[in-house]
């Protein structure tokens, strides 16, 4: 367990709902859920979740801390916003899902090997480097996520799409060496650093 995680367990002890309200983005909305189930029924990926949103909200209230934070469920959210527009209580469900995933990651107890999580990390690392997404490296890293041999297979399967993107100017071979950046790269890095400081200060308080 990370120090932060142990600290949070200490701090909130029996009240996971309070912990979520204080630390998870839009977490203060969780108590508004009336368990109607329309979010769970509306999620296009719902059948693949261990615990659909309304179940997660009940588990939070029931104090099932590890089961929630270590779950792969909220990582299944594709931000389609179907649940959010239908929720009769206007809970920002999509944001809460990402908030929970992010919080679990901060605590270092997120599920390992969950592909959405891995992709999110790749995407972030890629973006944070130059301030722009390098499609080529993102693709390469993604294909080789599950090892070299598998990566070659995936890459060959995707070759057609890659060629199409190349022809239409969406993918440049120059991206292999450096690639395009934002105009003020150091300013961008400073901004990200500051945001991370603010976020840490919020969680550590």
């Amino acid at each position, binding site marked *: 367990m990370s120090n932060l995680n142990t600290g949070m367990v200490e701090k909130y002890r029996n009240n996971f709902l309070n912990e979520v309200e204080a630390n998870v983005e839009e977490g203060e909305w969780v108590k508004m859920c009336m*368990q109607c*189930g329309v979010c769970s029924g509306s999620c296009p990926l*719902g059948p693949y979740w261990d615990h659909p949103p*309304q179940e997660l909200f009940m588990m939070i209230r029931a104090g099932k801390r590890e089961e929630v934070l270590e779950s792969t469920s909220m990582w299944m959210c594709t931000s389609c916003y179907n649940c959010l527009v239908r929720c009769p209580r206007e809970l920002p469900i999509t944001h809460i899902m990402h908030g929970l995933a992010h919080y679990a990651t901060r605590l270092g107890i997120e599920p390992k090997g969950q592909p959405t999580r891995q992709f999110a990390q790749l995407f972030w690392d890629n973006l944070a480097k130059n301030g722009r997404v390098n499609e080529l490296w993102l693709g390469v890293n993604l294909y080789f996520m599950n090892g070299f041999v598998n990566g070659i297979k995936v890459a060959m399967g995707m070759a057609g799409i890659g060629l199409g993107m190349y022809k239409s100017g969406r993918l440049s071979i120059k991206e292999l060496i450096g690639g395009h950046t934002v105009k003020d790269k150091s300013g961008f890095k400073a901004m990200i650093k500051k945001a991370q400081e603010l976020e840490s200060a919020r969680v550590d308080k």
Partner: protein
Amino acid sequence: MSDIVATNQTILVVGGGISGMTAALEAAEIGKQVIVIEKSPSIGGRVTRLYKYFPKLCFPTCGQEINQRRMAANPNITVLTMAEVTDLQGDAGNYTATVKISPRYVNANCTACGDCASVVEAELDDPHNYNMSKHKGAYLPHNMAMPKRYVLAPEIIATDDAEKAKAACKFDAIDLDMQEETLELKAGAVVWATGWRPFDAAKIQPYGYDRIDNVISSVEFERMMDPFGPTGGKLVRPSDGKEAKNIAFIQCAGSRDRNYLKHCSRICCMASLKQSTYVTEKFGDEADVSIYYIDIRAIDRFDNFYQRVKENPNVTFIKSKVANIVENKKNGNPVLNGVNVEGYHRYANEHDMVVLAVGMQPSVDKNAFPIELKLNDEGFIESDEANGGIFAAGCSADALDVNRAVQSATASALKAIQVVNRVAQAEG
């Protein structure tokens, strides 16, 4: 109409539904002068479209008959139908209302023999049946209509139909020269009883009310049970006329939803429980009813009714707000998708027909009142001193069942009586 006497001691009742009738009777029977302003061609309001009343499962026609007789017998009550208050000025003890009366084209000679209707050809949507059927351009609003007098729809005026109707009438009751009239009436107090309207189910996009034939609303379902109604008293599907034995009710259709109506409409749980008994009344053991709900709100003494329905093996309760409905194109069955919150089971359930238990909203829009009134967020009239001598009764005050609507009407009548009593004392 010029013979109407209205003074500062008159009580104006706007809306002649069960609430308005009750308020009018309470005031008139202790000797107050009352004028009822009703927008439609007859009084009675929405309860005249119900088959049975919960919780006793008696017929609304019975209570209507008693109230209508009391009204007809009372010389203190004047009823103006096809009338609307277009302007209201003044304050408690001293109001002036401007009332617009639309022409009915039929006078008091009418015996309701129906000869006019039999010769008229034009057919128009019948609002009494929520437009599920048509009526003639000359019509009696419904069997229990009071006044029992035909109406010529404005659509047939200046057509051959109007002339035919006039020629067919043996009692010289049809007057095609009738014009719109405007009256100014004095009043000391006003009871506002304009009631409710069903929430427009088509707004709930995922339920496909406007796309799927066999998805209907609860008010339409009520009309199906009326032997004189649009289906002749049969529970049949709109798409193919097949008997609908496997019926799903979806609760809170539009209510308790910040996207639509924020409030709980309070009567719709009981309405669906009641309507489940209609299905068993028709089909006995072949009835197969499913009620999809968030939680069943059968308040205080209604709980007995709920418990009785729960004991019925032909009625299943599913704790779930249905996510969406799609149509099985092969058989026209609506398919309900969602998650049963008890156990988190995902379902895709097929039914013959779906009834949306639609919410209640005030019949008058927030900005359409002829005088400024204190309203709550949903547009129901508050009990507030700022409203002076105007008191809300029944469903213009809140989403209420008949019992509570009538209680509210009695309370409002009492408040109105107090205002006109004060005027009487001051005037000596």
